[in-house]
């Protein structure tokens, strides 16, 4: 009978000792990668033995590109039948399909990643692996690569089959090399986003079912992004934007990897064992954060019975719970500040390309502020949208316009249309403006509820920004918060271009902006922090707890600081700003 002990074991303890010590030295990058590849090889081999993964990959690699080829040819023939320029269509439309052809197999990487991470947790096959000397980073890299390789290879093959069909088929279209590279890069980073995102998702669950339900958090924004990319792809002169999208996605990957490496550790993987919503725990975390009780204070209370501090008055609460949040907002505030300045600069830059026709007398296209406000007061919640008017089609086809002209027209056309007003159209004469401002002041004095309208609008926008920000890692909220500054940049750029005195406009902004801008900046930073917290490395809190605490901070500071500031800003905007502008005009600015 063979023995279970190695013949050398008892005699040569030194050998064992030197073997164990070989794990002591920190691994070189190559050793780390090499160890990670042991995991990758096993996982890939395992995936390739599962027909549920292989069948869709094969179908998407071979059948879908062939179908896409046939569909592309059919579309182009159809449009050519109606007199469209076939060549232009080929250039615009055909590059769109390889991107789609590549995306479908890549979307499977999400499924594989969830299976690789959560499936192993669910089957408990991860524990023997965690008992080995492999480092967390090696395990993480190995599994990420394993989830990416098969779908990516399928995507590359699919793109190859599709392009092969185009080159050899009816269209005889040869895409530019850079276009192919661009599509491959986009496909790769999309796969990386989905897989690295899946790791973050997997940390929040122990069942594949729950992970699949959570996967919508990734698949929905990615699908939307692919639609946006498609819209860009069909415009050959805009395709450079896709590089920026690729760069943006890479940043998201870096953020997810940062979080993933932190999450993918033995403690997190085995420490969690429930998927159910623990309402009691959620409520306690929210309440703790609202009261300003830190996780350390809670832990000290639980483990050592140290009493939890409390805030007897609202001033204590501000001091203990609200103001300390500001220390956490340093980086988000800087990011929002940079976004605002960047957007202002972009607005200014656009004003040099798309110049507003300010020298011309605006016909009936300017909004009459007073009328709009009056209308707003008549509607519930003060929400009023100016109606769109559709211009009748010209009888004769106009001369084609340049892009610049089309954009300038679009800007003018996009202005809210006036309500049927009897008053004379708005003009660039100080007298008319002064008259209108006086009307506005009287109207505002008689209707202080306008403050509510302005406040309601600002709150509505910030609430929408919060929801969209939480769904988009803070990207959409930052855009929403910074966009008005882009418009300001555009307006001031135009004023500058037409040598129009900007002081009344600056006064108009500053009079209430001095309060409103800090409020918006703060709100933007709070939303950004809550949205990005899942990508932030934390050594103490789980993703769920960090997220709950950041959202509570957002609501808390939103109610305690941002809302009062917005009330003050709305009051100033209704009651002070018209006076200030009038004053600026009267003293001859």
């Amino acid at each position, binding site marked *: 009978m*063979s023995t279970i002990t190695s013949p050398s074991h008892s005699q040569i303890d030194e050998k064992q000792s030197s073997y164990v010590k070989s794990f002591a030295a920190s691994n070189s990058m190559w050793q780390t990668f090499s160890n990670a590849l042991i995991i990758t090889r096993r996982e890939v081999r395992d995936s390739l033995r599962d027909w549920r993964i292989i069948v869709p990959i094969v179908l998407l690699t071979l059948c879908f590109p062939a179908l896409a080829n046939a569909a592309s040819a059919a579309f182009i023939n159809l449009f050519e039948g109606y007199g469209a320029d076939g060549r232009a269509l080929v250039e615009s439309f055909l590059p769109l399909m390889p991107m789609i052809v590549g995306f479908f197999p890549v979307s499977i990487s999400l499924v594989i990643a969830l299976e690789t991470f959560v499936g192993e947790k669910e089957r408990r096959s991860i524990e023997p692996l965690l008992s080995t000397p492999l480092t967390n980073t090696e395990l993480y890299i190995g599994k990420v690569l394993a989830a990416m390789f098969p779908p990516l290879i399928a995507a590359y093959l699919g793109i190859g089959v599709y392009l092969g069909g185009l080159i050899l088929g009816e269209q005889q279209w040869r895409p530019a090399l850079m276009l192919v590279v661009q599509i491959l890069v986009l496909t790769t980073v999309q796969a990386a986003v989905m897989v690295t995102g899946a790791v973050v998702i997997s940390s929040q669950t122990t069942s594949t079912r729950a992970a699949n339900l959570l996967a919508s958090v990734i698949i929905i924004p990615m699908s939307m992004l692919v639609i946006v990319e498609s819209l860009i792809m069909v415009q050959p002169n805009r395709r450079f934007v896709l590089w920026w999208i690729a760069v943006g996605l890479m940043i998201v990957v870096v953020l997810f990897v940062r979080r993933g490496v932190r999450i993918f550790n033995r403690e997190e993987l085995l420490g969690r064992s429930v998927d159910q919503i623990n309402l009691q725990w959620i409520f306690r975390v929210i309440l703790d954060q609202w009261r300003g009780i830190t996780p350390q204070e809670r832990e000290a209370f639980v483990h050592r019975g140290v009493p939890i501090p409390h805030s007897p008055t609202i001033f204590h609460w501000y001091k203990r719970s609200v103001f300390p949040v500001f220390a956490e907002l340093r980086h988000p505030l800087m990011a929002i500040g940079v976004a605002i300045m960047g957007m202002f600069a972009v607005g200014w830059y656009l004003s040099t390309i798309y110049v507003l026709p300010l020298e011309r007398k605006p016909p009936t296209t300017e909004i009459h502020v007073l009328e709009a406000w009056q209308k707003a007061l008549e509607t519930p919640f003060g929400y009023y949208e100016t109606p769109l008017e559709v211009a009748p089609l010209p009888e004769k086809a106009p001369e084609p316009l340049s892009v610049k002209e089309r954009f300038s027209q679009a800007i003018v056309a996009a202005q809210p249309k006036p309500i049927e007003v009897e008053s004379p159209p708005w003009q660039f004469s100080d007298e008319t403006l002064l008259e209108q401002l006086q009307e506005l002041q009287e109207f505002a004095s008689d209707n202080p509820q306008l403050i509510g309208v302005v406040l309601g609008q600002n709150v509505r926008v910030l609430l929408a920004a919060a929801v969209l920000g939480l769904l988009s890692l803070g990207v959409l909220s930052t855009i929403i918060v910074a966009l008005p500054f882009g418009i300001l940049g555009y307006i001031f750029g135009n004023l500058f271009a037409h040598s129009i005195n900007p002081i009344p406009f600056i006064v108009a902004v500053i009079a209430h902006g001095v309060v409103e801008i800090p409020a918006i900046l703060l709100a933007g930073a709070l939303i950004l922090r809550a949205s990005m917290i899942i990508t932030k490395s934390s050594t103490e809190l789980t993703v769920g707890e960090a997220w709950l605490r950041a959202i509570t901070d957002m609501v808390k500071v939103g109610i305690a600081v941002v809302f009062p500031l917005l009330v003050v800003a709305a009051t100033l905007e209704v009651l002070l700003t018209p006076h200030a502008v009038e004053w600026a005009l009267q003293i001859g600015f």
Partner: protein
Amino acid sequence: MIEARGLTKYFGEFLAVDNITFAVEPGTVFAILGPNGAGKTTTIRMLTSILTPTSGTAIVAGYDVVKHPAQVRASVGVLTEQHGLYERMKGLEYLDFFGRVYRLPTEIRLKRSRELMERFGLGDALNRRVSEYSKGMKQKLALVRSLLHDPPVLLLDEPTSAMDPQSARLVRDAIVELKYDRRTIILTTHNLTEAQELSNQIAVIRRGRIIAQGDIDTLSQRFVGPPLMELRTVQPLNGFTDELTQLVKIREVYADRVLYETHTPAETNPIIVRHLMNAGIDILTLSRVSQTLEEIYLNIVEEDEKGQGTTV
């Protein structure tokens, strides 16, 4: 070889392991007994450097579980509570994968894999997919995996669960062999007969706390009481039991049989034998009634429930 001092683990607010202390020497099997959820698996995971203790320290094979996790994991062979095998792999492939992870040279990992599979009766299943293995075969494959890198320390969580009696015997023999090879072994099990057979030291853990610790004799003495003796005679005992009452505590009396407790059997039994001979009663047998670990365990748990449990 394994030394745990004040090992404590919290999951959030839940106290899973509460300040446990023990030491296991090489060539010793240390059995950890306790109900489900008592903290046995969490203890094993801390000793494998999978979970970090909230407080306390543990040294395994000379390495601190917090400071040198890689060395600890390289020194330890772990059989997890659930075997966690990759079902789509073949037996040999599976071992080859773990051999690579443990950085074993190709020749050694193939040799060890074949030898161990042969030793545990899996020689014919080397190239079969794990999904085709029976429950017991899977358990044995998992055990082979834990032995593959020839570790000096073994942490075995329920090693014979799901095995047929023949396979379980094979595994128990292997554990004894490893014990005599001076490996340090920690065993968790619900099979008290197995624990009694294999272990030198026992710890009973409940609600994360060690409520009793020691060898079986010590635990038996403490929690079950003094040794119980059974005396069988050829002739009826008649009035001799009154005389016996003055010497020992009698538990049960029959016509030709009596069960009694004595703290000092070496001193008491010869006296009783002399008295019987003088009384002309022939002795058929005089033996110690063996107390099972189950009895000891149940008494320990019962005492702990009454709030009298103490660490030995």
